[in-house]
């Protein structure tokens, strides 16, 4: 395959991923507030106390499942078990991109330490943005200094056939 053909194939794949995966998230493109909503804050108020309690239980249930999936994916990445981490990506992503492409998305310049789920922001029935604090170790070559750092990342997740999947950027 010539380099030009490689490029064309790549762009086609990107387009397909956009069509297959991102429509589920399209309605989430609201202006960025910068300050994430509190966990569960987007849940509409219920009309009565019993239904309110039921709704709260339902929200807590799916959020617990989602949180477990987020943590399990990162547990795999921290172990550098990319095959396991790959299994958390959306079915449409896996249909287009093999494991080795997924693996190629990760460098080794930081050491992933641990993850905390900070926020879960529902985006309709079957999508959510999960805010995580990712703790990493980074060895800065200029200063010969290993820094323990953290960064807040908003991860897009979708629910397909009752299961939560990570929406992989490509």
């Amino acid at each position, binding site marked *: *395959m010539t*380099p*030009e053909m*490689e*490029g064309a*194939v*790549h*762009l086609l*794949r*990107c387009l397909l991923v956009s069509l297959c995966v991102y429509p589920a998230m399209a309605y989430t493109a609201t*202006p*960025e*507030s*910068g*300050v*994430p909503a509190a966990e569960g804050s987007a849940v509409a108020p219920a009309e009565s106390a019993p239904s309110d309690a039921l709704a709260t239980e339902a929200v807590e249930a799916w959020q617990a499942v989602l949180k477990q999936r987020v943590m399990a994916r990162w547990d795999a990445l921290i172990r550098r078990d990319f095959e396991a981490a790959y299994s958390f990506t959306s079915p449409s992503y896996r249909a287009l*991109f*093999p494991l*080795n*492409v997924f*693996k*190629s*998305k*990760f*460098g*080794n*310049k*930081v050491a*992933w330490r641990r993850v905390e789920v*900070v*926020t879960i922001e529902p985006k309709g029935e079957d999508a959510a943005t999960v*805010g995580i*604090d*990712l703790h*990493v170790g*980074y060895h*800065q*070559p*200029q*200063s010969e*200094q290993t*820094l323990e*750092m*953290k*960064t*807040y*990342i*908003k991860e897009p997740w979708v629910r397909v056939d009752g299961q939560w999947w990570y929406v992989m950027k490509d």
Partner: protein
Amino acid sequence: MMNGKVKKLALAVGVALGGVSMVPTAQAVSAAQDNIGQALIFPYYTVNSGWMSLFGVTNTSANIVAVKVRFREAYNSRDVLDFNVILSPHDVWTGWVAETANGPTIFSEDTTCTVGTITSSGVPFPSPTSYVGSAVDGGPTTVARMNEGYVEMIMMGAADPTSSTTLPTTALARGAIHSTTTGVPPGCDALVNAFQDTAKLSQLRSEFSVPMANLNPLSGTFSLVNGGEGYSAAGKPVALANFFSSDATACGTNNTFGVCNLITLQLSQAAAGDFYRSWHEPSLSAANTAGARLATTGTGLGAEPSIAGTGVNLTGAPAVSFALAHTNVINEWTRRTNPAAGWTTASDWVVTFPTKNFYVDNKPSTEFAGRAAGRANIATALPAVTTAPTPFAQFFVDTVNTPDVTTRGQSCDSISIALYNREEAMATGGGFSPGGTPQLCYEANVLTFAGSNILNSAIPASVDSLSGTFGWMNIGFSPASGLPAVGFSITSRDDTNSALLSEAGLVEHSYVAPTTLP
């Protein structure tokens, strides 16, 4: 401290200026050829989508050096975070910014004295102030606007640590020197208090009064680290040498600060209206020397022209703009993928205009604007605003051309694009997005290739029609006298082959200097 090449440059500029200028000093602000100077411009920071940005500044001198650090957002260079770093002799300060649930946050594990205090657990950027309420400029008013931009570090003054028994004493400044027993500066609290006390300003200015002429002590580094994807790339800032002179003549004609250094206080925001005692200054408009740059033709040096009819050289932002002016920006790009083999390459370019706000942000009533009325040296150093913010094409905030203030939220300059592969084939700027016409609309611009956007910028422009899968590109600016720009290309390579680890690299741009004077 001054390195040899910079000294030669300064002397040569003095010779060059002698015939055309009334500035009787050898000092002229220039982009230091040896990456050491009085002011450092870090072309980009980002906390978007897992990126973290690390900064380091080294004081190579035997003096105590006070430095203003300022983070400016990418749209319109409004100040979003600033603080002072008091470097002891031969000291290094390091810190980094990353996103947290509270927005961009600065961290430091360093023991160097800073005003305000920065901790390893992080200090969030202040809530948006400089572009909301009465300061709106048409750009976003969100916290996320602070997620990317660029950083300037400007030497405010130097203190002699040995002058304990002679005037001026440096009792406060010497508090920045690290204790050999505790490893921390014992007098940092006193320095912090002093920089927030208007009654202490004259003492600080007196203590940091080592002549700044030809004193170029600052060197820097930066790194961009993507925590989620495990990439990093490092670079060096652009250093401006001889940014400020304390000699009597230079200060006599531009004595904004009363005492001839750039020491200002770090007052709370409640006292923000007082430009020259507060955190608004020094900025890149505080240069009190003329601009100079190496020329591509002639005898080697180009000197800034004088103001028409006065024989006096422009100082301030125009001097810095002159020193950084380029007609063309050149670097390499790649956008290649081989899914079967499991690798992909992608490039983003950063093109930052660090003095643009002093031309295009024309909202005098807003103290945060580049052309704020309180910024007196703008009025004296920049030509009067007419119909366009020359050399830039469009106001970001326009109070000139309409009865009402026009806040565009962008300020676009058309560019030309010559995009080559590695075998001479060329494409000329087709398929540019957004808008179709190649243009750069912000102060820190991210240019992607076929939507690469590895920096996850919120305001990318993209070159979509590529001439192959890798090559080089030449951006041309419209003004014959160029535009002041700094930046780099960052390239990532994703690879699963253990022999070729996934990695990113950062390469500073090459430039073509203008042969036409402003």
